């Protein structure tokens, strides 16, 4: 077999693989858009679910619920995980840093349903209630290793001379770390946060027995709350056509949200290029 033919065959195999990947992506997106877009209407965004048997209604409580759960989760996990990332990067040679690194790796591998059960035992059972708060704690645990790892990697990529430049300005080490190194790592860290948000927006399993779901408004973060993925789950397996239709609409909204987050993160990377 000659050299050129081998090259052609190799290229062919590569192109086929790429096509399969792109096809899967396009198929999912187009199918969800096709199914969801036709079911979406203004009511979907502004109305509560109707009682069983009645047609119409919407998912406004689930949309708001999802946003609240995810924002609260970010509020818990962003400061914690950034500080952890700083620790891992600044004290990389400490023995304890290795322990933390392994712990984070395991945590990022733990199936999300197990994190749900853990929070159920730790928060829901003692408080004797499902709650939005419990849901955000579960999601924040999922975000933690993602953001901590990105922060560590981004800080590690900064050349030593940037840090020395900060020290040479007579700044204390903590000021160099927080105002100069973290600032330098900012595009990467923010990207990591956005991607982790995109990830947890669609998480369903850990919410099943934490925020639980709710067909009405939650009146406080200490009450069970609806979330988009939960609502999609319930509506998709229900025996009513109208509910199935709304599940597709929910899926559509979820995919658009994830796309927006990913788009934002790419913009951010380009801005500092």
């Amino acid at each position: 077999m000659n050299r050129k033919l081998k090259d052609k065959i190799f290229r062919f195999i590569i192109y086929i693989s790429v096509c399969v990947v792109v096809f899967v992506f396009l198929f999912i997106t187009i199918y969800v858009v096709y199914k969801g877009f036709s079911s979406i209407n203004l009511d979907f965004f502004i109305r509560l679910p109707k009682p069983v048997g009645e047609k119409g209604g919407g998912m406004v409580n689930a949309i708001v619920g999802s946003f609240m759960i995810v924002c609260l989760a970010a509020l818990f996990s962003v400061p914690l995980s950034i500080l952890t990332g700083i620790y891992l990067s600044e004290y990389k040679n400490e023995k304890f840093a290795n322990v933390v690194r392994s712990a984070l790796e395991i945590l990022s591998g733990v199936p999300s349903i197990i994190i749900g059960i853990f929070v159920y035992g730790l928060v829901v059972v003692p408080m004797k209630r499902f709650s939005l708060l419990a849901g955000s704690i579960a999601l924040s645990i999922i975000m933690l290793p993602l953001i901590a790892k990105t922060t560590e990697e981004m800080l590690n990529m900064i050349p030593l001379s940037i840090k020395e430049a900060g020290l040479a300005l007579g700044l204390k080490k903590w000021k160099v770390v927080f105002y100069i190194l973290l600032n330098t790592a900012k595009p990467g860290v923010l990207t990591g946060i956005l991607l982790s948000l995109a990830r947890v927006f669609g998480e369903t399993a850990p919410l099943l027995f934490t925020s639980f779901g709710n067909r009405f408004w939650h009146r406080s973060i200490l009450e069970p709350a609806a979330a988009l993925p939960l609502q999609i789950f319930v509506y998709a397996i229900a025996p009513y056509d109208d509910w199935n239709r709304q599940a597709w609409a929910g899926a559509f909204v979820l995919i658009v949200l994830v796309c927006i987050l990913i788009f934002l993160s790419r913009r951010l990377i380009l801005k500092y290029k």
Partner: protein
Amino acid sequence: MESIKIKIENFSAWYGEHQVLKNISFDIYKNKVTAIIGPSGCGKSTLIRCINRLHEVVPQTKINGKIYIDEKNIYDPDVDPMEIRKKVGMVFQQPNPFPTMTIFDNVAIGLKLNGLRDKKQIYEIVIQALNEAGLYEEVKNKLDAYATRLSGGQQQRLCIARALALRPEIILFDEPCSALDPISTAKIEDTIVKLKENHTVIIVTHNLQQAARVADYTAFLFLGELIEYGPTNSLFTAPKMKKTEEYIRGVFG
């Protein structure tokens, strides 16, 4: 009559077990440019990194001896290294502006983080520092552009401005032109010569012509030892030591 700004006395430094500076003593004069020359690995950079106490931020390093600035030993236990670093500015080998900050912020950040709040005052100092570094005319219309937009030479002058903003008495240059083209190099050399009016300047270089062009005094270091030190003219034209003469003639190095 020249007055002494820095007095280095029996000074030695180590990286782990490796001794990079061996019992060095000499005086650096106020408002002069002093060049430190010598082959790679002779300890030139380490020596100036000891003058702003940056050597010690690398793990497993140690020093022995004294360095006096204005007759105060900067290695006395009551001396705060942060205060020394404000007094002794540094420009590094590779241009290292803070990449996610604007041109203005790169110069202002040292002032802000050292506690200066007055916006107007910060602005004035930044402009003055950019002027002194010979960069202002080129960047005056894009002070809020990211520093990474500048060319290598401009970035290095930005780093000079960043150091100048803190009004240091001494400025250390660690091979500031080794990553730059000849035109950028010439601009930085001009700046260095102008700076000695108000500052004491020390420049590490392995470019002998550069030392001859900018320096009033030159110190020749070899394998961690100070071989010869004196006015640049006499060191280059009539070196007293055989090693110095060989190095200048290009026999080794």
